[in-house]
């Protein structure tokens, strides 16, 4: 059968290559400049055939730029790229695809209403992808077969929107396998997975490497890199700092390479001496998600003054909806939210703001700020009604400017001036502006959703410090995060969400990652 032979060919090709050359992809002296920044500064990199090679670095270290150069999206200003020992110049992403380089992006490139098989064949310009008539059965058979071989179970006829995030990621990997990728680049693939799903992914990646493919694994999580990679190349500030063997390095030595200094990995928070009265009380809250399906089911929680309640869970299990429901952005279909004993008006963000609920939303750039407006405008985004920046209906622009300058100074925001548009700030600086605004409103309750997502190690430390300080001042904090280490390091109690339910509450002092992982995967609920 035609399909069968094709599969053997895929497996055979990289092995032959492995015999001929040890190096799959190499670059020397890659430099890529963008206006105002050098994203890659003379980067050297080399990944061998049959290797899982991790690319480790903080945000802004140049990992994404380098992978965009490998996939033909960017053209380097200087430097050379070699594939299996031969120099190559990619004119476009298509050339890179033809050369067998595929990338699994952090945000999946999938067409939601299409089936798995349709997505797999989409954009493929060889064979079936090119023919006028599509033969869905043949593609589905092929996809199912690839799935079986690599442990990527997913129904080829399912539509993308019906799949969990983990399954969608499998589709992306299947896409690469279907295109006979010899080099697979994954950009922070575990960000959306449970610990168990991540472990399964690692098995798949190892199997692919064992066949003679090359896997480039981009991450900033140290233990993952240790778990899956053969070698690690560390990028810092656009430069390649070192390539080390994963087996011989420790998380601590990798962290030191990554940030250029020693850091404390996951320092535990001292439990606040005394917690006060319950400030945030949620009773039997139910809400529907964007698709109109139940996203929150009978959630009951209470957070006391001075306490940090962590909410853990795999992305998409109701955490976002919980944050929105608590802050009035999503109406409840049942139940209630009360702050300091007063019940909030349902679906009214202004009432929540007036009750003293601060909110650090998950979507920093489009919910937390108006991206094209200035830092100054964004600092008063919630307080522009207040008497200190207004006279009658008029805004006192001078005072708004001063308030913003104060936030910039106090929270150490790296920005040229309060007039700078918010979207020009880096993720970490933007988050400082958001936190500065929320804290300057002197909240009684703070709902923080993934407050450190996408930030670098330095900024994460700062955000964690602000959250701890706020808790010490007596703010009741609900911290929603997919990063278990973060939740365990900060929270006094941890509630785990699965499919809209709170399936359990654990003590971060005694719970293990495995226990929480089991709850996150619905183990207890089933």
């Amino acid at each position, binding site marked *: 059968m035609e399909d069968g032979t094709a599969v053997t060919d895929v497996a055979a090709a990289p092995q032959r290559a492995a015999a001929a050359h040890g190096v799959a992809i190499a670059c020397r002296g890659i430099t890529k400049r963008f206006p105002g920044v050098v994203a890659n500064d003379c980067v050297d990199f080399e990944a061998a055939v049959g290797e899982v090679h991790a690319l480790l670095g903080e945000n802004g270290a140049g990992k994404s730029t380098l992978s*965009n150069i490998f996939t033909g999206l*960017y053209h380097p200003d200087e430097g050379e790229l070699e594939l299996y020992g031969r120099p190559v*110049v990619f004119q476009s992403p298509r050339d890179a695809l033809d050369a067998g380089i595929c990338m699994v992006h952090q945000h999946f490139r999938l067409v939601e209403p299409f089936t798995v098989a349709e997505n797999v064949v989409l954009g493929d310009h060889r064979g079936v992808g090119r023919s006028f008539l599509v033969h869905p059965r043949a593609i589905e058979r092929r996809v199912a077969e690839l799935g079986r071989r690599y442990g990527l179970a997913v129904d080829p006829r399912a539509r993308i929107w019906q799949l969990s995030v983990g399954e969608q990621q499998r589709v992306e990997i299947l896409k690469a396998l279907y295109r006979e990728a010899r080099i697979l680049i994954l950009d922070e693939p575990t960000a959306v997975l449970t610990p168990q799903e991540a472990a399964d992914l690692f098995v798949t990646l190892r199997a692919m490497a064992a066949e003679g493919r090359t896997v480039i694994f981009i991450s900033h999580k140290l233990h993952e890199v240790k778990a899956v990679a053969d070698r690690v190349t560390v990028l810092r500030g656009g430069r390649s700092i070192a390539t080390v063997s994963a087996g011989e390095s420790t998380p601590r030595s990798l962290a030191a390479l990554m940030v250029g200094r020693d850091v404390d990995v996951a320092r535990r928070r001292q439990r606040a001496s005394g917690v006060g009265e319950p400030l945030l009380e949620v009773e039997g809250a139910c809400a529907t998600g964007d698709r109109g399906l139940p996203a929150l089911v009978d959630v009951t929680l209470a957070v006391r003054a001075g306490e940090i309640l962590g909410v853990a869970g795999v992305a998409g299990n109701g955490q976002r909806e919980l944050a929105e429901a608590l802050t009035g952005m999503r109406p409840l279909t049942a139940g209630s939210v009360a702050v300091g004993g007063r019940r909030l008006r349902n679906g009214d963000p202004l009432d929540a703001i007036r009750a003293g609920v601060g909110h650090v939303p998950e979507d920093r750039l489009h*919910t937390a700020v*108006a991206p094209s407006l200035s830092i100054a*405008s964004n600092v008063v985004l919630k307080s522009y009604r207040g008497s200190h920046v207004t006279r009658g209906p008029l805004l006192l622009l001078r005072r708004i400017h001063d308030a913003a300058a104060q936030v910039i100074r106090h929270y150490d925001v790296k920005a040229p001036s309060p007039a700078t548009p918010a979207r020009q700030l880096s993720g970490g600086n933007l988050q400082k502006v958001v936190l500065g605004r929320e804290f300057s409103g002197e909240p009684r309750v703070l709902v923080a959703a993934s407050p450190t997502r996408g930030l670098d190690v330095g900024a994460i430390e700062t955000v964690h410090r602000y959250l701890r300080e706020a808790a010490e001042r007596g703010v009741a904090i609900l911290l929603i995060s997919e990063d278990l280490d973060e939740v365990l390091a900060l929270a006094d109690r941890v509630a785990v969400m699965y499919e809209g339910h709170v399936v359990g509450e654990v003590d971060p002092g005694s719970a293990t990652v495995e226990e929480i992982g089991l709850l996150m995967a619905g183990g207890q609920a089933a």
Partner: protein
Amino acid sequence: MRVRIERRLAQPRWLPVGVPAGSVAFAFAAIAIVLVATGHDPLHTYGTLFRSAFTDDGALSATFVSATPLAFTGLAAAAAFRMNLFNIGGEGQLYFGVVGATGAALALGGGSPGSLSIAAMCLAGAAAGAAWAALPGVLRAFLRTNEIITSLMLNYVAAKVIDYLVFGSHSYWRDTTSPSADVFPQGQAIPDAALWPFATIEGAAGGIALPLGFGIACLAASALWGLYRRTRFGFEVQVIADSPRAARYAGMRTRRTILAVMCLSGAIAGLGGAAQAGNFDHLLDPRSLEQQSYGYSGIVVAALARYNPFAVVPIAFLLGGLKNAGFALQGADFPNGLVGVMQGLFLFSVLGGELLVRYRVRLERRGRGRVEAAQAEPA
């Protein structure tokens, strides 16, 4: 060589001025080719154009007549478009402004003092325009109906309404007294006391008559600028325009603001209707209003001004001049169609040039592939 169009990462300072200037120069060059091809002398034509728009006796006065309604409809469009609310209904809202203003003037009659009549006309015109704009506003705010479609369709309804008022009924607005009116129906003229004055500037080009309406348009432009830059309401408009999610997050009453902005936009168009009635038409004239289509031209004015209220007024003035010059150029050897071609090329160049404000064109030697992401951000 290959040509690439890329999003600009930074906008040089000269750009917002340089691009429109370059576009205009390009337009004149392109029009010159058409003129030569059709056997006209471009220099002579441009000379006539400029003289009849700005320097001939009475040319400036005539330009003000054309520019006044365009300034109002341009401001109306700019007010709504700034919040990404595409009110295409300036046309109908202007008709209703005329209906409201002439109605108020006729109701007050000849006995009332001029200033009172004028104030009443402004209020009634603005209120009528706002009320007509409230229809698509409510639909958009509360039922999420696309305001482009509804406001556009309501223009045709408004045209039918004013036709009915003058041609289809013996309404308040129809002239039922003069003998010719039975044969040729027309609107009832407003009393002399309600006519809007002109300020006359003596001197160049045989004196310039500056209509009161144009002055009100300038005031409206300043007021709109202040409203959007300096007030809490304007702040909400800015945030909603930039990110509706952020506005909801900040507890802003988005629906209320949508309705308010639609009504504001309609009120400005209605005020334009009042100025048209008070300064120039003096009666409800459906044929003329429908033929002029000030509302649609106002959208072009707003786009050229990049929704900046202060830029709307001079651009309305330029386009008004161009429109008048078009009438002056037409003749036996200069067909109407050619005027249309000139105006079309002009607008095409200027609007097309807008692309260059946000994107840049780069020529590359050899075929070096370079695909920059829409927002090239290193990370």
